């Protein structure tokens, strides 16, 4: 915009700028990030597919309706082929999205439920509280995660709930660190001081002032916990202590597909691609959200 007033050539009056909220700017930044938008769209499609699965699949995911065509390759009738037990593979992949997404969201919710209060406590009180919580986090960073997950899986017999618990157990650390950093940065701000001076209790300050101001790291931590949980589900199913059959889970399908890989490639390729695409889309979406909500973190 040219404002060369001193030369007297023209006097450009800036148009009245409407008041824009930070959320509006974040939204604009998010839209500018094509990879993140693509990730978000893919996530949306997957969620819709998972919810509406019965509407566009042939059979029940556990129905062995096509036993005579077992292990058939992909065709117009069976988009992703038929698996070794005569089940339509496309149906199973779509229903697998339900399992993966449910586990992802449940684990992320629990991660947030553990991570937010602990992060807020560590950041707000500092000192000894902080030390204890940081030592707990340190414990989780030195313990071999796959082994602990295996052990917990053996302890509880595996299954849906176990996977959510294990994912949350390892997922809360990130949420906690993000919230802690934000709370620590805000703790010395004037409005917190003012609240304290007015006699607000620590619990009140944390609930009313600190956590609402830490919403962006919380959202980011939540979204980025989803792909981690989905990967863990797949890994544990791969090791045989995941979601028990016949519930379709991608990790379990990859595990089965491995045995048929040399002759029936579709058994391995489709669940692998499904898992990779989902995790990738969620991560891109989460990364984009982080960059949009907090531009100072870009590229970390």
């Amino acid at each position, binding site marked *: 915009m040219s404002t060369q007033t001193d030369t007297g050539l023209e006097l450009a009056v800036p148009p009245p700028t409407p008041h824009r909220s930070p959320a509006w700017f974040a939204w604009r930044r998010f839209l500018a990030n094509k990879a993140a938008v693509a990730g978000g769209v893919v996530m949306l499609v997957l969620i819709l597919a998972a919810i509406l699965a019965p509407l566009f699949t042939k059979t029940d995911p556990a129905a062995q309706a096509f036993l005579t065509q077992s292990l058939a390759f992909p065709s117009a009738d069976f988009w992703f082929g038929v698996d070794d037990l005569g089940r339509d593979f496309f149906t199973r992949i779509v229903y697998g999205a339900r399992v993966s997404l449910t586990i992802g969201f449940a684990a992320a919710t629990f991660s947030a439920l553990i991570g937010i209060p602990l992060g807020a406590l560590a950041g707000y009180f500092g000192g000894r509280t902080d030390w204890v919580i940081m030592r707990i986090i340190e414990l989780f960073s030195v313990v071999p995660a796959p*082994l602990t997950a295996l052990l917990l899986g053996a302890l509880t017999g595996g299954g849906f709930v176990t996977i959510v618990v294990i994912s949350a157990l390892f997922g809360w650390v990130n949420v906690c660190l993000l919230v802690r950093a934000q709370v620590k940065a805000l703790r010395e701000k004037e409005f917190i001081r003012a609240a304290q001076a007015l006699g607000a209790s620590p619990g009140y300050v944390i609930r009313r002032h600190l956590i609402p101001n830490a919403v962006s790291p919380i959202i980011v931590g939540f979204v980025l916990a989803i792909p981690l949980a989905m990967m863990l589900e797949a890994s544990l199913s791969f*090791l045989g202590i995941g979601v028990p059959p016949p519930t379709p889970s991608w990790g379990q399908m*990859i595990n089965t597909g491995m045995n048929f890989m040399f002759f029936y490639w579709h058994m391995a390729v489709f669940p692998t691609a499904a898992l*990779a695409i989902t*995790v990738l889309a969620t991560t891109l979406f989460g990364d984009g959200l982080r960059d949009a909500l907090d531009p100072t973190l870009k590229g970390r």
Partner: protein
Amino acid sequence: MVLFILRRLLSIAFTFFVVSVIVFLMMHAVPGGPFDGYDMPVSKAVRDTLMAKLGLDQPLWVQYVNYMKGVLVFDFGYPYQAPGETVISLLANAWPPSLLLGGLGVLIGAPLGILLGMAAALRRNTWIDYFASALATLGLTIPVFVISMLLILIFAVWLNWLPASGWGKPERWILPIIAYAAIPIATYARYTRSAMLDTLNRPFVTALRAKGLSERRIIFQHVLRNSAIPMVAVFLPMFIGTATGSIFVEAMFRIPGLGSYFVSSIENRDYPLEMALVLMVTLMFCFAYLISDICYAWLNPRIRFGEQPK
């Protein structure tokens, strides 16, 4: 400095203790015992004798104390699944494949990742940058066993260039090393890119440019050195993580390394082996973090041990 290391050693000892107690309890809380297997059923009398011989009939805390006494003098006991050996000798055979392949994966992957990250930072917002970022995101989001499977499928099954699995001849190492290298490449590309971009924006780079230094000298002598700190800090933990967290790659490529013992020790309730694995890996991680912290401070004199800025 000495005080800092001493404090960290104390903290490591504490972590070690807590991990050992928790894992020991969890391990014994898993239902079933080492001789309840279906493939080789033993009579109750035999099982009782075996349990008594191995001290498994004693109270849990006595077992814990006895085991940890051994650990302090590096005696990790006898694995139940191979009674003729000690845990140490069993693991001594399993370490080399894991260390060799995992180590080579990191040693090859880290420089590649650094180069990729440098290229991305120096040619920002060009196709190189997008390619590097895409690769880094893919490497971190696709589970390692999926990468392994794709490698086997493409190079062994379809193209028939390389053997799919096994151990021994060096050509069998290529695919697992690529699988291992995926995470280091991705991590390093990301770290290097963001560290270099940070450094490139610092005023001293502008000052150097104003002084008339060649771009090459600025990049290699100044920017790279100043961005190297985070790269050094993540190296050792990643090395340990890759070499020990290899259940999936080893399972996929049928490599006789540590990974298989992680699963079999838990499945067979092989308590001494299980404890040994957890404790060794935990200790290695602790020391990896300690050493990288020391390197970090040594490279960056602005960080002083113990003094926490108020």
